[in-house]
C-alpha cells in the first residue's frame, strides 16, 4: 500500500512517455496532415479519442486516486455533449420552423416534436431549457457547470450518507440508466433516441471544413493538456495526498479529523466537469449526439480505459483511452491475417478478454507494464 504513494510520486519519471505522446499530438499529426500523409478523418478521429481521454482523466482522479468507482462518468460526458449539441442544433441545418415567439425550432427537434405542428399551436415553441444554449460563451460555461452541478448533487447525497465502494458504483449506474431512459423519451423535447443532429456551424464556421476540423482537433489537444496539468496540480498538492489517503484507508483519515466527504465531493465534481468538457468537445467533432453515449456500458468502458492504461497514474488514463479506442477502431473492421480472417464480430470477445486480462494479468495497466517488465529482467 505504501509504495502506491511512492508510485504517484514517480510521475516525473514517466513524463517522458507523455512527452512522446504530446510531441505526436502537437507536431507529428498536424504536419502529417499538411504533408498529406494523414487524412482529415484520422485527425478528426484522434480529436474524438482525445475528448474521451479528458473524460478518462476525470475518472482517474475519482477512481484511480480517490478509490471511488463512479459509473456515471458517461452521464456527465453526455450532459456536456448535449449542452454543446443544443448550441449546434440552434445554428444547425436549414429545416425547422419559426415558432410563435420568433425562435427557430431546431431541425432535429422539429422532426421528433411530440405534437404535430399546427395541431396545438401553443405547444410548438422552443422549450425554455433550449434557450440558454443559443450563444457559444454561455454554452461553454453551462457545459461545465451543469455536469459539475449534477456531480455535486449526486456526490452530496451519496457521500453524506457514506455510500461507499460497491454501493456507490451501483447507485451511480442506476442514476445513469434512469437519465438515459429520460433522455430517450420523445416528449422530453430532447430529440429522443434520434439525438441531436443536423449540426452545421460553430461560431459561424462550417463544421464540414477541414480547417475547422483541424481547429477542433487543436482545441481538444489544448484542453487535454490543460486538463492534464490541472489534474497533476491537484494530485501533487496536499489535497491530492488526502485523496490517496481516502483510497487507502478512509476510516483512519476520518479519525484524524479530516472531513473525507468534502474531499470526495471535490474530486467527484472536478471529474464531472472534466467529463462535461470532454463531451462538449466531442459533439462538434462527431456531428451527432445521441443518448447512446449515456448507456450504462459506456461508463464501464471508461473504467476499462483507465484500467488498461494504469489506474492511479494520470498518463495511464490518457494512454488507456487512446490505446483502447485505437484498438476498437482497428478490430471492428474485417482484416485478413496470414492464418485467419478477423471479423468485426470478434471484437466483443477481445474486449471481454481485455476486461478480464486487465484485472487478472496486468493490474497496473500499460503504464505499469514497463517497470514490471524491467524489474523482472533485472532479476534474471
Amino acid at each position: 500500500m505504501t509504495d502506491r504513494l511512492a508510485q504517484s510520486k514517480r510521475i516525473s519519471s514517466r513524463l517522458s512517455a507523455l512527452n512522446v505522446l504530446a510531441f505526436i499530438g502537437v507536431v507529428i499529426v498536424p504536419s502529417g496532415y499538411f504533408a498529406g500523409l494523414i487524412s482529415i478523418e484520422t485527425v478528426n478521429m484522434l480529436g474524438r479519442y482525445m475528448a474521451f481521454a479528458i473524460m478518462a482523466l476525470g475518472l482517474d482522479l475519482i477512481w484511480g486516486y480517490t478509490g471511488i468507482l463512479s459509473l456515471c462518468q458517461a452521464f456527465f460526458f453526455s450532459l456536456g455533449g448535449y449542452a454543446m449539441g443544443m448550441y449546434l442544433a440552434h445554428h444547425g441545418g436549414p429545416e425547422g420552423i419559426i415558432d410563435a415567439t420568433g425562435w427557430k425550432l431546431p431541425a432535429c427537434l422539429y422532426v421528433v416534436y411530440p405534437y404535430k405542428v399546427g395541431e396545438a399551436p401553443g405547444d410548438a415553441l422552443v422549450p425554455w431549457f433550449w434557450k440558454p444554449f443559443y450563444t457559444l460563451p454561455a454554452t461553454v460555461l453551462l457545459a461545465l457547470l451543469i455536469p459539475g452541478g449534477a456531480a455535486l448533487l449526486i456526490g452530496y447525497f451519496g457521500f453524506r450518507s457514506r455510500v461507499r465502494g460497491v454501493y456507490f458504483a451501483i447507485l451511480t449506474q442506476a442514476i445513469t440508466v434512469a437519465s438515459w431512459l429520460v433522455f430517450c423519451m420523445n416528449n422530453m423535447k430532447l430529440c429522443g433516441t434520434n439525438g441531436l443532429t443536423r449540426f452545421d456551424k460553430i461560431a459561424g464556421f462550417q463544421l464540414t471544413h477541414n480547417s475547422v476540423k483541424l481547429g477542433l482537433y487543436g482545441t481538444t489537444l489544448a484542453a487535454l493538456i490543460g486538463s492534464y496539468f490541472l489534474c497533476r496540480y491537484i494530485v501533487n498538492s496536499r489535497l491530492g495526498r488526502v485523496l490517496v489517503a481516502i483510497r487507502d484507508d478512509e476510516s483512519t483519515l476520518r479519525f484524524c479529523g479530516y472531513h473525507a466527504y468534502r474531499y470526495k465531493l471535490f474530486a467527484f465534481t472536478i471529474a464531472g466537469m472534466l467529463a462535461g468538457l470532454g463531451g462538449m468537445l466531442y459533439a462538434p467533432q462527431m456531428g451527432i449526439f445521441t443518448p447512446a453515449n449515456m448507456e450504462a456500458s459506456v461508463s464501464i468502458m471508461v473504467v476499462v480505459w483507465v484500467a488498461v492504461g494504469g489506474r492511479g497514474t494520470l498518463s495511464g488514463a490518457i494512454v488507456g483511452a487512446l490505446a483502447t479506442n485505437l484498438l476498437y477502431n482497428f478490430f471492428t473492421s474485417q482484416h485478413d491475417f496470414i492464418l485467419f480472417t478477423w471479423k468485426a464480430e470478434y471484437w466483443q470477445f477481445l474486449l471481454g478478454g481485455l476486461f478480464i486480462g486487465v484485472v487478472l494479468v496486468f493490474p497496473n495497466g500499460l503504464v505499469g507494464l514497463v517497470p514490471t517488465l524491467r524489474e523482472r529482467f533485472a532479476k534474471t
Partner: protein
Amino acid sequence: MSRQGFYRRLYPLLQRPGGSLLVKQGKNMSDEYEEIVGKIHAVPRERIWSAAALRWRLFFCALSVLMAMEAAWGQAETDAIIEAELLKLSSEDTDARQSALMVLAETGDPRVEYLLEAFRIESLFVWNGKVVVCEEFIEDDDFNEFAPLTDPLSGQPILENGKPLVVSVDDLKEISPSRSERRFAQNAKFLIRLSSTDADARLSGAKKCGDPPGIPASTELLRSMADDDPDVRVRRAAIESLELINLFTAIAADDEEATISAADALGQMGSLRAFDRVSELLANESALPEDEQSAEAKKIFQRSVWAIERYQSRISKVGNLFRGISLGSVLILMALGLAITFGLMGVINMAHGELMMIGAYTTFEIQRIVGHTPDAPQNWYFFVALPSAFLASALVGMLIEVLVVRHLYRRPLESLLATWGVGLILIQAVRVRYGDNIGVNAPEWARGSWEVVRDLNFPYSRLFIIGLCAACVAATYLLMRGTSLGLQMRATMQNRDMAAGLGINTSRVDRYTFAFGSGLAGVAGCAWTLVGGVTPDMGQTNFIVDAFLVVVTGGVGELIGVVFSGLGIGMLTKVLEPMEIASFPIGAVWSKVLLLIAIVIFIQFRPSGLFAQKGRLSDD
C-alpha cells in the same frame, strides 16, 4: 355434427325448469347463483342427483357419440353442405345468397370463419365453376395481373402439379356482397366463434356479440351459453352481452322501461362495456327540460354509472396490487441469485444478467429438442427446462468462478470489471451461435388468464412466476439454514479464515455457492421466457441494474431483505405508474426515476439497506 346444431338439438333437454333463469332482468350473477342454489336446496337429495347428474351424463353421452360420428362422416357431410351453399353465394338472386349465408353460418364450422371473412372483403371469386379465394393479385413485368388461388375451406394455396395454381384475372368472376350481406358475414363470424370448441374463441365471440349495436340474432345462443358453457369467463361474457343487446335494442326501439331495467342490470354487474352508453343515457336524460325528465330513469342511470365506476376502481386497485406482487416476484427471482453471489460472497457479479440469459437460452434449446411448437405443443417441456436452466447456468457460473472470480475475492471493485468482461464474451458467444432474436413459445398452460371476477384477469404465467418465486425463496432458505452445505457457506462468508481453520474447504464452498447463485439466475431466466423477450443482451438491458438495486435496498447479507425490497420496489412501481402528478401521467419511465429518487432518499437514512448486518463485518 357441429357444435351449434348439437346445442340446438340439446337445448330443450338442457333447459332448466325455470326457463332462462340467468337472463332475468335486473339480477346480477350472485343473486342468480343464490337463487339456483336455493332451488337446489329446496328439492330432495335424490332429485338433485338425478337432475344434475342425469343432465351431465346425458350431455357427455351425447357429446361422445356425436364426436365419434363427426369423426366418421360428419366432416364429409359438412363439406358437402358448405360446397353446395358456396356456389349459391355467386348467384344473382339476393334471397338465394341470403339463405346460403344463413346455412353456412349455421354449420358453425370454424373453417367458415375464413370463408366469410373472404366474402366480406371481396376476395371470393368463381373460377371454373368453383368458388375460390384470391387474397392478392400479382403482376408480372408487363403489368398483366394474375391471381394465385386459395382453397376457401382449408385456407391453403391450391396446388397444381405441386406448384401453387395461378390463373389470369380475366378468368375470375367476382362475388360482390351487398352492404347488408357484408354486415351479416361480419356478424356470422362472431356467431361461429360462439360455437367453437376453443374457450378463448367463444369468449371473444361472446364479447363481440355485445359490442354496439349488438347482434340480436345471437341472443338464443348466448342464453344457452350463459347457462351451460363449461368456462365461467364465457358464461359471464354471455350474460353481460345479453344485457348489452337488451339495452341496445331497447334504446333503438325507444322502449324506456326496458332501457331502464337493462341499464340497472348492467350497473349491478359493474359492466365497463356498458359505461359509455349508460353515461350517455344519463347525460341525455339530464339535458331534457325539467318537466320531461323521468326522476326514476335518472335515478337508475345515475346509480348504474356510480356502481360501474365503483366496481371498476375496486377492480383496478386489486389489479394493480396483483401486478405489483407479480413484478415484485420477478424482481425477487432476478435478485435472489445475486443476493448470494453479491450479497453473501461480495462479488460484484456483472455477468448475473448473462447467467439469466443462459437460462433463457437453455429453455429455448430444450424447447427445440423436445419439438414444442404452438401447433404441436409439448407442454411438459417447461418442467424439463427449469432444472436444465438451473444446471446450465450453475455450470457456467462454476466455470466463471474457477477461471476468474476465484482470484478476486479480496478485490471486489475489480470483480465488477472482470465479470462485465465475462458478460460481454457470453453475450457475443450466444449472438454468434443463435443470432439476435429467438422465440420461446410459452407452454399452453401459461397462456391465457384466470378471470377472478368480471374484468379482473390474473395471467397464468404471472401466477406461475409468483409460485416459482416463493418456491425458490423457500428452497434457498432451506438450503442455507437446513443443510450442512448451507452452514459451511454461511461460515465461509462470515469469516473465511476462521472457517478454513475449522477444516472447511473454503474454495470448494466458494465454488458451490457461486454455482448455486448462478443456477438461481438460470431459473429466473427460464421463468422470464414466460413474460418477456429473449435476446443475447437481455441481461445488460433489462436485469442487472434492477437486480443490484433490489439487493442494495434489501441490505447485503440477508436473503430476507431481497424478498422485502423486491416486493416493495415492485409494488411502488405499479402504484406510481398509473398515478398522475398535476394531470401529467407518470408512466413507466418516470415511475422508474421516481423510484430511484426514493431509493436514494431511503439510503440516506439506512445506508446499508433494510436488513443491515451488524458488527464489525458491516464496516467492510
